[in-house]
């Protein structure tokens, strides 16, 4: 329990915000918290939040690691489109499900490797290096689908998008399992610490014997893999690969999730769980807006207002002010006591 305590303190602000957002929505729309079993699966708005949040949650896992190395990966949305297109093209041309999944994941790894080499070996700034694939990726995906929405009917592939396991939708199971696996991988080994060291000072870590080049490439490869899984889910969900729209602007949502999760864009210390909570906060807001019945013109304004509020509350200045306020109050209390 004591070992868990610092983690819980770290996650407390994000958890509080998530609870606040969910409560706010359920005030306006009481059925939001209602869960029921339908067709052998849990059914309700909360499940929708977990399910629709899957792509951003998966992207946020990889993005957290990349941002911890003081980098950024703008290409994830486009990599989603590429991998979705590859999966659809492979399954429609008659390949087996296993081959299709392996191929799509391999393409994701390859995209990550490309980014990693640009950043680690050629020393190009991450924002520029990954911008290349962000721009080119959608074009590549369109080449694969030949500009159309490539639809498929393979029950195995569709299961990944809309099937269920233990009553939960498959995408939810996938991002939960993947999130836990990556967290264990970086926290049960020295990897996490090495990544943080690399993010804080790459030169110092290299000099202390950390193979920073390999680590850096590995971070982008992981991000590519996350994008590939998200891309397969997005395609399986609509039974088709939509090269124009799959993952469009999701890189920004993923970065936002990482930041709302309290991770610094300057690299260093990171928390995957916090980023996942960030992703859930964003998706709760999205789902809440859809349920609210406001005209669509308000969607983005409401979302922006809530996010500004969350970020302001988290900002160090406000925290300092709050601390100052708290201290002056206690100071006043002592003064009063002394006066007595």
């Amino acid at each position: 329990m004591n070992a868990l305590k610092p983690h819980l303190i770290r996650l407390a602000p994000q958890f509080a915000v998530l609870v606040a957002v969910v409560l706010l929505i359920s005030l306006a729309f009481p059925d939001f918290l209602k869960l029921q079993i339908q067709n052998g699966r849990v059914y309700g708005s909360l499940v929708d939040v977990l399910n629709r949040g899957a792509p951003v949650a998966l992207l946020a896992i990889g993005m957290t690691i990349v941002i911890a190395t003081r980098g950024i990966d703008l290409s994830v949305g486009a990599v989603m489109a590429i991998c979705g297109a590859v999966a659809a093209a492979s399954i429609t041309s008659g390949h087996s499900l296993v081959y299709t999944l392996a191929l799509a994941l391999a393409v994701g790894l390859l995209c990550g490797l490309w980014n990693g080499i640009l950043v680690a070996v050629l020393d190009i700034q991450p924002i520029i290096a990954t911008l290349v694939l962000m721009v080119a990726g959608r074009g590549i995906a369109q080449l694969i689908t030949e500009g159309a929405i490539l639809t498929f009917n393979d029950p195995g592939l569709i299961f990944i998008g809309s099937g269920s396991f233990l009553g939960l939708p498959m995408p939810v199971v996938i991002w939960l399992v993947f999130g836990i696996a990556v967290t264990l991988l970086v926290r049960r080994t020295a990897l996490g610490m090495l990544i943080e060291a690399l993010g804080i000072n790459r030169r110092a870590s290299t000099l202390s014997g950390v193979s920073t080049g390999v680590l850096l490439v590995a971070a982008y490869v992981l991000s590519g893999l996350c994008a590939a899984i998200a891309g397969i889910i997005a395609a399986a969900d609509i039974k088709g690969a939509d090269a124009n729209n799959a993952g469009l602007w999701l890189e920004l949502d993923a970065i936002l999730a990482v930041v709302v999760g309290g991770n610094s864009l300057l690299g260093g210390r990171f928390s995957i769980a916090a980023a996942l909570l960030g992703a859930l906060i964003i998706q709760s807001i999205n789902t809440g807006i859809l349920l609210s019945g406001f005209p669509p013109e308000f969607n983005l304004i409401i979302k922006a207002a809530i996010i500004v509020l969350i970020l302001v509350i988290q900002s160090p200045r406000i925290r300092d002010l709050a601390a100052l306020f708290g201290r002056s109050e206690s100071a006043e209390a002592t003064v009063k006591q002394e006066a007595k």
Partner: protein
Amino acid sequence: MKLKTALASATILAACMFGSAQAADLTVGFSQIGSESGWRAAETTLTKQQAESRGIDLKFADAQQKQENQIKALRSFIAQGVDAILVAPVVATGWDDVLTEAKDAEIPVILLDRTVDSSEDLYMTAVTSDLVHEGNVAGKWLVDAVAGKPCNVVELQGTTGSSPAIDRKKGFEEALAGHDNLKIIRSQTGDFTRTKGKEVMESFLKAEDGGKNICALYAHNDDMAVGAIQAIKEAGLKPGTDILVVSIDAVPDIFQAMAAGEANATVELTPNMAGPAFDALAAFKKDGTLPPKWIQTESKLYTQKDDPMKVYEEKKGLGY
């Protein structure tokens, strides 16, 4: 040097002969926006087919969603001295200069599927569909289909602020006006995509008593309807029976859904904009008849009775 001059004059001579041999036929330049959607790919395919069947030499330029590329393409068409120019303008503004150049060169310009903000005398005609009318046709179908019974409608709008979203909403509402049994209870944007269509429909179903309160869905395009149909199925309801589905565009996939009884009706946005354009051009070249400034394409209604599988097979190869 001599050889070069000889070669050059030979080329010019050949060009003249070639030119005169082709004089009977028309050379038309076509500046397409790019490949932004399946519908546009189908429009490109049909334009090429139409040109081929009429013996028109079509010069095709893909602008990759950039107006500057379209203006460059138009200037090169003018320089080549084509007989007419078809253009699907990517944006509405900024065409005055290049259209004036075409007018000065006496090359008629026909706008396809979108219009521009330039003065009407700068182009010959515009071939477009009437977006308001499309919404109207969809609305009328629904009014007839429910036949006076009370019906709660949910609406999946296109991208907020886009002209198809505004006009298709307007046309649908006009058709429903005066029929108090039909009420639009929820309306939200699905950004014209399957993913958002599915996500928004899921929230509609949750918000309206698991969908029991919804009698019909109106989607501003077929892709959103296809996504919504999946959401309806996953909620344990029958699309097409429990919830009527009507949408616009008539892309091949909606015909598959109609054949399976999961969608009820779609209004066609025909990708054959070039056919009427070439007809107008032929009439103009023959005896100088000027077409009206706006040629409206037909907004045809397809229902489950129209042999959806057959239409699907016809449309499949067009590149949607």
